[in-house]
């Protein structure tokens, strides 16, 4: 079972420079844990105590997973998950 996970530039130090890695799982949470088992530290950049990190965008087949159940979003073979750090900032 292979799900493609596209990795943004700033997280490629966890994947040896790879733009995408493969993983498996039935939910986004289990997929992240699976990928983290081979690329240690990646999960911590995506998830905190409250779930998916606030300024990290995760998409499942081009849809924002915030609308698909977040970490509980079901994933399956052939899906593509994309991670993009939010582009944001403030005046303080």
């Amino acid at each position, binding site marked *: 079972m292979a799900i493609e996970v596209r990795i943004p530039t700033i997280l490629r130090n966890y994947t040896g420079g790879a733009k995408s890695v493969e993983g498996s799982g039935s939910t986004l949470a289990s997929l992240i844990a699976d990928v983290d088992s081979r690329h240690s530290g990646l999960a911590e950049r995506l998830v905190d105590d409250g779930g998916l990190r606030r300024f990290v*965008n995760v998409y499942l087949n081009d849809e924002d997973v915030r609308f698909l159940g977040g970490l509980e979003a079901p994933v399956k073979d052939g899906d593509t998950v994309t991670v993009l750090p*939010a*582009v*944001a900032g403030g005046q303080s």
Partner: protein
Amino acid sequence: MLTLPGALRAAIIAHARADHPDEACGLIAGPEGTDQPQRYIPMTNAARSPTFHEYDPAEQLKVWNEMERRGEEPVVIYHSHTATEAYPSRTDIALAGEPGAHYVIVSTRDPEQAEFRSFRIVDGTVTEEEVRTAGDDPPGDDLAGDDLAGDDPAGDDPAGDDGVAVPEE
């Protein structure tokens, strides 16, 4: 150093003015590895706030997917400050997620004169850089604009005096 066409610099300032008093945000894409800002992409500030900006996540994916298709990367990532100086805030620094980009900040706090400054933000470290608009170089001098930021050791332009308080376009 950031080298960009004068028309794109003007477009960024115009966008910042148009969205004032909300922060404006956007980017300029260019072919991967060339450091050439070419394609101007203004973005919606989903926060619609005078003190915060954030790309709409769905729009961001579309833009990033298109850059991937076209072999581009974000060369300039810009936003405006509406009441403070054109310098990265703590939040700007904490959230800077594109280590290869030039972070341009425009301040619209003065209605007459916009401030336009550029920075590299890598691993939480801010380095200001010179901004050069195309046409500034005399013939034969750095025509390709390939004096990349890496050539300029941090500290050479501590005052950041290139780009401060530029005339309104």
